[in-house]
């Protein structure tokens, strides 16, 4: 079986592919965690940990938040807390909400299609018979 190389960047390593996939999904998941209201970084990480397995190093979430803010999908504000130091809260902008809706719809479309395609692969015994 020949391994087909795409003309773009080398995508032949599965862990790299998974990292890319995770990265893409993490962005949507981060936006989604803010759907119900503002949260600060650690709360976002906790939410993602509780509801997905996306977070590897906790640090990865902060650069993503920074980028989403640059793209005007999020806003942030520093809020004084009982903890003795302020916390940086993030919330979705209207643009962020619109984008997230599109992303969620696209995600469902995409994964439904793929699920059907890969279903036989996840039951290798049946395939071999």
């Amino acid at each position, binding site marked *: 079986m020949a391994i087909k190389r795409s003309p773009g960047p080398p995508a032949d390593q599965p862990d790299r592919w998974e990292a890319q996939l995770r990265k893409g999904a993490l962005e949507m998941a981060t936006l989604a965690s803010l759907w119900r209201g503002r949260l600060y970084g650690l709360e976002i990480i906790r939410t993602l940990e509780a509801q997905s397995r996306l977070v590897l*190093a*906790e*640090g*990865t979430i*902060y650069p993503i938040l*920074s980028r989403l803010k640059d*793209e005007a999908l999020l806003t942030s504000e520093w809020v004084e807390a009982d*903890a003795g130091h302020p916390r940086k809260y993030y919330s979705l902008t209207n643009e962020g909400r619109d984008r997230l809706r599109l992303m969620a719809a696209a995600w469902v479309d995409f994964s439904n299609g793929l699920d059907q395609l890969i279903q036989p692969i996840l039951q290798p015994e049946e395939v071999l018979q």
Partner: protein
Amino acid sequence: MNTATTSDQEQIEQFLTTLRASLGPIALPEREEILREIDAHIHDSMELTGQSAATVIAKLGSPQQLAADYRDGALVRAASYSFSPMLLLRATLRIATKTLSGFIVFLFALTGYLTGISFLITAFLKPFFPDRTGVFVLDHHLYRIGIQNTLPPVPIHEVAGFWFVPASLVIASATLVLTTVVIRHFLRLSTTVQQKLDGYHPTFRTSQPSSPSR
């Protein structure tokens, strides 16, 4: 913050110092805000979980990796709002190594800037070498624009005179402005493209309302 011991505090300081150093090219206010946020994260996480600074820091990942994630794309983003030729060239050079269009834009940028600078230099040199600088014609045809090493042989002569100075200054500014505008436009475009390539783009089209699928 109350739960942090001296040794905890030292480890936090060390992490933040390395992070600060690795954030390098990111603008100072942005850098300080990043450090403030990460500092708050470490203290909150320690209080919430009762874990030591070392554990909380380990879960953050390495400060170098964290800084690299922040820096990733920051150059291109910064350059797309800048007028600095150096910054613009550096950003296009980075993209040039990745895509063909990036490479073409890099060549365009280099050519544009060099042309602009050449006109500036000739405008500056005209007062010093009036006979050898300017627009040279031979039999009513353009022979050469610029500066000659030696005085050209007789039928070739310079026609612009001292008008050459304002004219080439105008051409130089126009070229430089045009080059800058085109590069910035491309960089903005490419940040959008990058975002799409990075993540959700392949799935994105299928969800357009106009999609005729199903």
